[in-house]
């Protein structure tokens, strides 16, 4: 649906040229919810604006629905933009227009008659749950309601693509949830391709199918959300994931850890498992098979894209030989195992 090839964007800054985008290529498929995550200044705003050419890339190609955006004339570009909706962090609603008039705005721009506009806007207001607010001005709405108006407005011209520029960053957590649920719902109902940029990993985790991580204008990682979450390759992705998946070694334990085995010490390890593996009572199996004790230090089981996904931080105690056998057993299972280190027995009381 959207194909970006070797995008470059260079700004002339006060102290010489600044590379906002450096050789970014990615492909977004029809009907996908594609997330782009990056810290502020990473270039994600520039990237999303290159899709509808609010920012013109210095080099590279932008294909949307088979159309090469960069070669379009001004008039053709305006027509192409009408097939893409966009929502914004600060909503950008027209303060002098009512909710109804705001949602009807893209239709008005396209020259649709007043009665026709009203006919098209009503179901959109219903979709976003604002039918009772149709004649209210934006100033009287809450942040979440304003974003709902923004979404309805973006959908008015029946676009194939919805671009979301930090759409939930100015909202509180509950409102964020409801807006994300609405986006997911729209994606399901209308088969709309959604591209969103954010600096919050939980947004990606909540609704995206695929994610691209950008840093310093470069694409550092791209893949299915599940893969990036369970096995992040780049340091940037690992950083973002830490914010939502808590499998950190507690500080009190980290201080006692040794990387080399301690004779008669306990083994501390992290297990990640997903899908089928979450259904197996493997800790019970472990204790039954080997003369080891298992102490769970921390753990969580969550769902990513409806696939159960868990991590456990455990401490094994027993004879050195039994511990090693248990470790080999686990490594043969369909689990991801990571040895964190060793602690002297009784040096630590896990809480």
């Amino acid at each position: 649906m959207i194909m970006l090839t070797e995008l470059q964007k260079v700004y002339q800054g006060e102290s010489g040229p600044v590379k906002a985008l450096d050789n970014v290529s990615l492909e977004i498929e029809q009907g996908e919810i594609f997330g782009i995550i990056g810290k502020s200044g990473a270039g994600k705003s520039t990237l999303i604006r290159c899709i509808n050419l609010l920012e013109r890339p210095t080099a590279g190609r932008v294909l949307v629905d088979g159309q090469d955006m960069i070669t379009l004339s001004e008039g053709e570009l305006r027509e192409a933009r009408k097939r893409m909706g966009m929502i914004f962090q600060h909503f950008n609603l027209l303060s002098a227009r009512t909710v109804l008039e705001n949602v009807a705005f893209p239709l008005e721009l396209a020259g649709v008659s007043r009665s026709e506009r009203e006919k098209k806007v009503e179901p959109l207001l219903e979709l976003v749950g604002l039918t009772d607010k149709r004649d209210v001005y934006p100033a009287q709405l809450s942040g979440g309601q304003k974003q709902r108006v923004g979404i309805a407005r973006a959908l008015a011209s029946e676009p194939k693509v919805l671009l979301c520029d930090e759409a939930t960053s100015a909202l509180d957590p509950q409102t964020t949830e409801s807006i994300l649920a609405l986006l997911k719902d729209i994606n399901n109902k209308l088969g709309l391709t959604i591209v969103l940029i954010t600096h919050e990993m939980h947004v990606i985790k909540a609704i995206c199918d695929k994610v691209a991580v950008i840093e310093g204008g470069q694409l550092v990682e791209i893949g299915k959300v599940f893969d990036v979450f369970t096995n992040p390759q780049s340091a940037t992705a690992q950083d973002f994931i830490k914010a939502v998946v808590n499998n950190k070694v507690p500080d009190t334990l980290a201080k006692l850890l040794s990387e080399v085995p301690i004779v008669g010490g306990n083994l501390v390890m992290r297990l990640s498992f997903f899908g089928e593996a979450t259904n197996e009572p493997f800790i019970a199996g472990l204790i039954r098979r080997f003369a080891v004790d298992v102490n769970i230090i921390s753990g969580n089981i969550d769902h990513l894209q409806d696939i159960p996904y868990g991590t456990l931080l455990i401490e094994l105690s027993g004879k050195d030989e039994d511990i090693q056998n248990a470790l080999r057993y686990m490594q043969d299972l369909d689990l991801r195992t990571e040895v964190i280190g060793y602690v002297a027995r009784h040096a630590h009381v896990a809480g």
Partner: protein
Amino acid sequence: MSQDMLMLLVEGLGETFYMVTVSSLVSALFGIPLGVVLVVTGKGHIKENLVFNQTLGAIVNAARSTPFIILMVAIIPFTRIIVGTSIGTNAAIVPLSIAAIPFLARVVESAIKEVDAGLIEAAQSMGASTGQIILKVLIPESMPSIVLGFTLTVISLIGYSAMAGAIGGGGLGDLAIRYGYQRFRADVMLATVVILIAMVQIVQSSGDYFAHRLNKR
């Protein structure tokens, strides 16, 4: 005060009202578009053209820094071309408009500059043309400030119109000078001042009222 004096006051009021109304309308007709052009051709705006913008800005500044009384005399040849005479209320309308256009343009410019750049970006993302952005976003969004700026212009014009008496423009200012000052008629002087104050108050209050009505923020 005699019947005659009263008649003169009513006549003067009518002339002032006529001069101010016509020159206000003319200044709105030219000043608002000029203000829009000053914004959209500015740096980083939708129709950036810095050479044009700075040239236009310099002309506007030149017109604004000329004292009204001098402007009025200096453009007499131009006034003759437009209205065929250089005396009377119609002749006064020309310099009044010329003085008010750049003033209103600057006021409109600063009002429109207040419009959040995000709104322009949103309109562009919906495929709005430059004309649509101006007419459907920039002007409606800054309407309350434009109305207040226009009010300010009308009030300035009431003040300037009193000076127009100097070139035989008529109106209340003319009356105050000829009778109140030159013939020592303190009552006439007082009456014209009171009428002018009342006019300014009415204009300001209506301006505030409309600006408030239009402001949905």
